């Protein structure tokens, strides 16, 4: 069942991504990569499966905390990290239930600064999987703007999903990064690896405490026909 939820979300998210991309047009001036990045919210309960996605511009710095804060967790009663007050009270606050996907478009010339950290409560050590999710979301959110589609892969029509294994240290540094599963194209594998190697995720500190977390980060490269 869960598989289908994930699949459904992935497809919806992709549809939103494609829709968004077409909506905005391929603003291809610079050699230029117009990237439409789709970040999907964690699917933690079955309630998310029947929801229609809605695309919205999503400021990177609002993502992890706000979404996690409102994710329905019927089976748990542990405290969950909260987003910054401004987000909590913002009228546009999103929940996992009504916004499974969000898109961000970053032109080639976009600012490459990592998203700013959102302060949040620390998680009790016992709630490991929740913390892991938070870290995963923080890593994904922080890094998504850094990815570029390699030119040679765009020209040759290369697509695929790279699985990166990595360790997030307590200070947000990323280490032990390796390609755990190839996309089938060395160019894409290397591009993904290189992107993550040159990044760090200080935003994740709040959920790390003094622990390091091992993650798998899937990076999917997909080409759109104009």
């Amino acid at each position, binding site marked *: 069942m869960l598989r289908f939820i994930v699949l459904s979300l992935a497809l919806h*998210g992709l549809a939103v991504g494609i829709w968004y991309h077409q909506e905005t047009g391929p603003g291809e001036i610079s050699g230029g990569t117009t990237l439409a990045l789709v970040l999907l919210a964690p699917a933690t309960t079955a309630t998310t499966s029947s929801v229609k996605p809605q695309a919205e511009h999503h400021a990177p710095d609002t993502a992890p905390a706000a979404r996690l804060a409102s994710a329905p967790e019927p089976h748990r009663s542990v405290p969950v990290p909260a987003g910054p007050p401004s987000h909590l009270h913002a009228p546009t606050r999103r929940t996992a239930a009504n916004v499974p996907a969000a898109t961000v478009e970053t032109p080639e010339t976009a600012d490459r600064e990592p998203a700013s950290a959102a302060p949040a409560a620390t998680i009790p050590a016992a709630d490991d*999987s929740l913390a892991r999710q938070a870290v995963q979301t923080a890593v994904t959110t922080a890094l998504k703007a850094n990815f570029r589609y390699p030119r040679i892969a765009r020209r040759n029509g290369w697509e695929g999903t790279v699985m990166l294994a990595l360790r997030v240290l307590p200070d947000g540094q990323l280490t032990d990064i390796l390609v755990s599963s190839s996309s089938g194209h060395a160019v894409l594998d290397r591009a993904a690896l290189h992107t993550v190697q040159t990044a760090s995720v200080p935003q994740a500190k709040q959920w790390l405490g003094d622990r390091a977390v091992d993650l798998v980060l*899937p990076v999917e490269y997909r080409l759109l026909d104009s």
Partner: protein
Amino acid sequence: MEPGRRPIMGLLLFSCLFTGLAPEAASAQTPVVVTATRMAQTADETLASVTVISRDQIERSQADSLTELLRGVTGIDIVSQGGAGQLSSMFMRGTNPGHVALLVDGIRMGSVTAGRVSWEFIPLQQVERIEIVRGPNSALYGSEAIGGVIQVFTRRGRGPLQWSATAGGGRYNSREATLDLSGSAADNWFSGRFSRLETDGFDAREPTVEFGTPIDDPDDDGHDNTSLGLRAGHRFPGGSELEFHGLHAQGNVEFDSSDPYPDEDDFSEQVLGVSLRTPLTGFLNLTATAGRSLDERESFRSGVPDSTIHFDSERRSFSLQGDYARTDADILSFGLDYHDDRVDSSTPYNETARYTRAVFAQYRGERGGHTLLARIRPLDDEQFGSHTTGNLAWGYQLRPTTRLVASWGTAYRAPTFNDLYFPDFMGFPTSNPDLDPEESETLEFGAEGRAGGFDWDLRLFRTRIDNLIVFDLASFLPANVDQATLEGLEATVSGDLYGWTTSASAAFLNPTDDNTGNILPRRAKRSLKLDIERRFGKAGIGASFIAQSSRFDDRGNTITLGGYGLLDLRASWQLDRNWQLQGRLENALDKDYQTVDTYNTAGRSLFVALRYQRTGE
């Protein structure tokens, strides 16, 4: 299992192994999806003037032939000697019809005797994507790429198995049917397409007198074309890809001529290719391609036995290309290619084969807002010897939304077998084996950008062609005696306007015969194309308008063909998930016009088609 699920399944499995988490928790790992628009394979679109037409656009246009689809595209002027399947010539940026290279899935096509591409026989129904590159490209694609290159790609199966069937018909008793099947599973992909079209057509040519002989053949001139396209590939562990593709089209076309000359052609066009792509190291990728194309023509007089003559061209090619890209900022490509052209004909040519071998290298670099491209291709031709072509292009990102481009390039066209090796006539030579290639040099400036939600592109070019081969009255042989200069301005704008998808392109061309100062024949000096379309729920409507100024039909500029405006209307209706109804009204204003003197064109014509599409589980 459906291939689309594989990454997610793999993700689940892998994350379980790696992190030791329960599957529930692992599901939180959603991928970062990095998307970009597919980039033209034919040329660097950030520096060259490129138009890409996708399958979706082809379907929405409802065009039923390649010539109809390409007509009015920026820089392209097509003239036809009658209706469907009749001889059509393409002028790209005002260059000669033999100055455009056509590649189908990377393999060169066309007749080596007549030196032309049979645009009218390439079945659009088999085409997935078209890339049009304006400007000199011999340094990548060899002979003929003076005005530009058109690269056609057939479908590559992707995702779950899907199939579709289309059937339609319309005026001039036109009938058309297409069957399509494609999909991919694991590391294999496949696609196949069968298509058949038939039309009774209309009288291709009005009564006239040519070389003192009257031509008066008032019957309708029909055409049929049956085609099959196949493509299949496999990806090996490690990333190597092996792919096979084939396209075969054959059929018949009737035309008008005087007795006893042929008035009917049986044709066949075929391309077969195999390619292997392999990553040698993480930075170096190697592509090997081998292919063969055929352009075969049997001409005969209807009902007259033993009147058949035939001209068959065979082009074989092999190429090896390496792409070295350590970073996105520097890409070095290099390689070699070998072409072997052969003729088989009822006419005994003095020579029936020739080869060309070449090496090439290209560098593309980016520093700051600057992009540089340099390319060189020395070649050795069995007939005319060595010749080198090259390109230099520079792009500058003036502002985030504005780019400037300047480029220079040379190109060439090898003499045809007719020019070189046509047999003697009654003891007198008619061909010249010592011809040099036609040579061109082009200078181009461009600016492109995005403003107010619209993409715009402006190009200014000047091409000078030297050593043009024409029949020289002094020597009474073909000779490299002509020069031409082509100057032009092209402008395109596209974007959304009040919910309508719109595009407009305009071209101004000054094609001059430098020997006489006359305007080169059959080119319009001014062209305009407007296209507009919109979806309303299940319905889609669209219109396109093409206007072209007058043109001269002869080199002496004595015969003028008037300018015209043509309006095409189209609509589609999605009946349900699988069924779609399409309709197209061509030449809605019923404009009476000619693009070649004495040759008729279609009047107002309605075509309707029904399409069924299904994606299997």
